[in-house]
Structures are given as C-alpha cells and as structure tokens.
C-alpha cells in the first residue's frame, strides 16, 4: 500500500510546501522539459528505505515458485499439476457434445493415416480364434465374438484423430457403439471405468461418461473396409472425444470396474495425462 503522505516525517509545516514548490520552479525554468508532476509530500530517506524493503518483502512470496526447481519435490508437483488439468478436463467434458465430423472429401487418404505402434505393427492376432473377453461389473461376462459385435447397430463417422505428438488426421471409422455393447453385456454403467487389454500388451482405460458417449465405438472398420492388421485388427477403440493414445488397438479384453489399481494406461502410467479429453 502507498504510505500515508499527509503527515510527512520530521519536517516543519513550512518546509514541506517550500521544498515541493522549489522543485516545481526548478523544472519550470528548464526549457526542454514540460512541468514535472509535483510531489504530494515528503518522506525521510530512512523511512523511504524501510518502505522499499517492506515492499520488496511483500513481493518475495513469488519466489515460492522456485519450489518447482527443487529435484525432490519437482515430479510430485508436476504430477499434481497434471492431475489438476485432468480434473478441469473432466469438468469440461459434456456427455452429449459431439466431436466434429467431416465430409468424405475432407478425409485424410488411408495411405497417409499414420500407424503408431507400441511394440510391433502386427502382434500376430489369430483372427479366426479371436474373442473379446468381458468381465467385471456386468451381468453377462464371457467371450464375445466379432459377429456379436457386428450384429449391433453400425455407426460410421469421419472424425479427427489427434495424436499427443501434435499431428492429426481425419479418418473414417465404423463399428458398434460401446454403449450398445455395454448394454448387451448388462454392464453396470454406474461403474467408473472401462478398461481394455490388447494383444500387444498395450492397455487403456476410459471414464464411464466417455465410454457411454455416442461417438465412442468398438471399431472394426476403417474407410469402409475391415481393420487391417496394422490398424488394430480385428477390433480397436475409436474415441474422437479423446487423444489418440487412448484409442487402443488389438483389443482382447474389456472390463467394467471401479478401480484402476494404478494401471490407467500404457502412456498415462509413464506420466501422460490420464483423462486427456479433447
């Protein structure tokens, strides 16, 4: 706060006015300067030094940011910061709000749709034997065949696939709504998460709100053709409201659960965002 200037320290009533007007006269005489602003009062130098020091102390708490440079606590702080961003992201997510869809003309050509593999481009899934194992908080656990998933209503969508690296492409994805599948298996949709496991040991999780979003698909087609091996045959997640790494390929198992047990997802467990809704 500004100091009280109505009672200048240690000066007689007369001298204060005298000093102020003298300064004003001095400046008015000098031709190159316009009249300076007048001082409204005086302050003893010692007092001024004290005021300055006090003001410096008042701003010193900004140095608290320096805690981010302390190695011992740095990672914990950053993890907390990221968690806060995830909390804000979850608050911003709207269950009914669709991700933008695009005309066919806007599609990225299939050959230009990148393949980001975790371990291999083809984990050697046996497409003939393949089933999706469903377990957890649901009424009908067990092995589900692709035909059962394909029997559910098919939805196709041209949506933007955003990679955490910063690139994006617009792809055409086709499949059954995850919400329809969850309905079919009698899943408890009051549970918090869906987790998935993959043939290449990749693993991911989705919050239930996102899992139930109408554009979240158990995707078995890309560009109107069955998924190729590189793109996750026979089944992958297509979740246009989430970042790319959440859209796991080569699904083998799905679980409805309230606990993650520290396993959120392959990339999340290394320090990437857990929620990463777009």
């Amino acid at each position: 706060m500004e100091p009280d200037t109505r009672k200048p320290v240690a000066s007689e009533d007369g001298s204060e006015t005298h000093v102020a007007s003298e300064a004003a006269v001095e400046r008015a005489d000098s031709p190159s300067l316009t009249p300076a602003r007048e001082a409204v009062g005086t302050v003893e130098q010692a007092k001024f030094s004290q005021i300055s020091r006090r003001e410096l102390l008042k701003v010193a708490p900004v140095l608290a940011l320096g805690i981010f440079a302390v190695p011992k606590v740095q990672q914990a702080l950053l993890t907390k910061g990221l968690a806060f961003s995830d909390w804000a992201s979850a608050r911003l997510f709207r269950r009914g709000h669709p991700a933008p869809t695009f005309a066919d003309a806007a599609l990225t050509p299939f050959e230009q749709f990148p393949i980001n593999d975790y371990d291999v481009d083809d984990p050697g899934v046996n497409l003939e034997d393949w089933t999706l194992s469903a377990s957890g908080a649901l009424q009908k656990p067990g092995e589900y065949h692709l035909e059962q998933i394909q029997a559910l209503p098919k939805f196709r969508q041209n949506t933007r696939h955003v990679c955490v690296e910063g690139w994006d492409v617009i792809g055409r994805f086709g499949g059954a709504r995850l919400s329809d599948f969850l309905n079919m298996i009698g899943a408890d949709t009051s549970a918090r998460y869906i987790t998935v496991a993959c043939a290449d040991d990749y693993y991911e999780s989705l919050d239930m709100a996102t899992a139930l979003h109408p554009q979240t698909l158990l995707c078995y087609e890309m560009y109107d053709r069955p998924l190729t091996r590189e793109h996750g045959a026979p089944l992958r997640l297509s979740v246009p409201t989430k970042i790319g790494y959440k859209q796991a390929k080569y699904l083998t198992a799905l679980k409805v659960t309230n606990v993650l047990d520290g396993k959120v997802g392959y990339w999340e467990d290394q320090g990437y965002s857990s929620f990463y809704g777009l």
Partner: protein
Amino acid sequence: MSSTILEVVRTKGDQTESVGRAAYEHPLLVRWCHWLNAVSLFVLVGSGFQIFRAFPSFGAKIPQKDLLHWPKAFAIGGWLGGALQWHLTFMWIYLASGLVYVAYQIFSGNYRQVWFTHRDLAGVCPMVKHYFFLGKKPPVTEPYNSLQKHAYTTVIVLGALSVLTGLAIWKPVQFSWLAWLMGGFHWARLWHFLVMWAMLAFVFGHLTMVVLHGWNNFVSKLTGWKKDPEY
C-alpha cells in the same frame, strides 16, 4: 490515476535537504502478477518448444516436413510427457496471473497510466525513431510513454490470444467453435506457435528496454517505487 510522487528528504538537525523524488508506479498486485506471469511464460515457452519437437511440422504427418529443428537444450521437460506436465501445470499460473492483472487494472483504474489510446498514436513514431538513433529523446511527462503503452497493451492481447489458441488445441472438441473460428485445429496450432513468437519479440524488446533504463527502473518493478523519475 497517476503515480503518487514523494520528495525524499534527509533531515540533519534543523536542516532538511532533498535527495530526490520517488514515484509509486507499481501496486503490489501488479508486481505479483508480473513476476508470476514472467516465470510462467518462461516455462510455457520452454516446455512449448519441447512439445513442438515431438512434431516440428505444420503439415501432414505423412510425409513429414519439419519446419525447424529446435534444440533440446533450449527446451524444458526433457521429453514430450515431461514437457506436457510443465505446460499443463504452469498454464494455470499464467492464466490466473493474467486475469488478476487485467481485472485489477480495470477495477482500480490503474490501467489508465498504461492503456494505449488514440491520443498515443502520435507519440509512437518519435519514440521508435529515438530508439533507432534517428531522433532525440522526446520529453518524459508520464510514467509510461506512448510506445510503452503500445507494447504493454499489445502484450495483453497476445496473452489472451495465447490462451485462446491454446484452449483450441487442448480442447478442440469441447471448444470446437473456438477452433472453428481460428480456421480449424491445424490453424489453431499454427496460431498458437505464431503468437508465441510475437510474445518472444515483445520479451526481447522489453528486456532490452529494462537493461537500457537502468537499475532504478528495474527496482521499481520489485518495490513499486521508482527513484528519480524523469517526469
């Protein structure tokens, strides 16, 4: 609201002599926001460059044509995951300090000493000429000259744009209308990058001026008080 000016005096016995004037230019909240924002900006730019390194291009992924190679040594975070942690943590401090600053300036009326208006248009060129050694120094009559007002007003606009473009690329689905306004996700990412460069240009100019304008001026941003103001 112009800054309060005091005469600093030294009294010895019954003699009082003036040792100079001091102007209270920067209220505490302004100083807090300035330093919090400055540190945050440093971290955001540094981590931003590390994020950029993951895909240093503005075109298709296939084929990838990198725009520039930014050295890891000048980036914060070490890897994409680390950089995102820094970026998504410090953006909140950046946002909060920016919002508090703008709100305070408006509600206290303190913005008047730094806000660029049409009255400042005429003063910009003489000041620029002077800094390029093409003209003599215009008289100092107020805490901020026209060129400074231009800079400190523009930087607020840049700050707002950095937040909005960042929001568009962080949340292109929930804020799809914002991304659309910017020309889409691709463009929003490019705008975010370009706004950063404009910010860096400001920072370069700003730091140059801070160095040129001496210790008293720098101290004023810490204590609020500028000794021996020229006005």
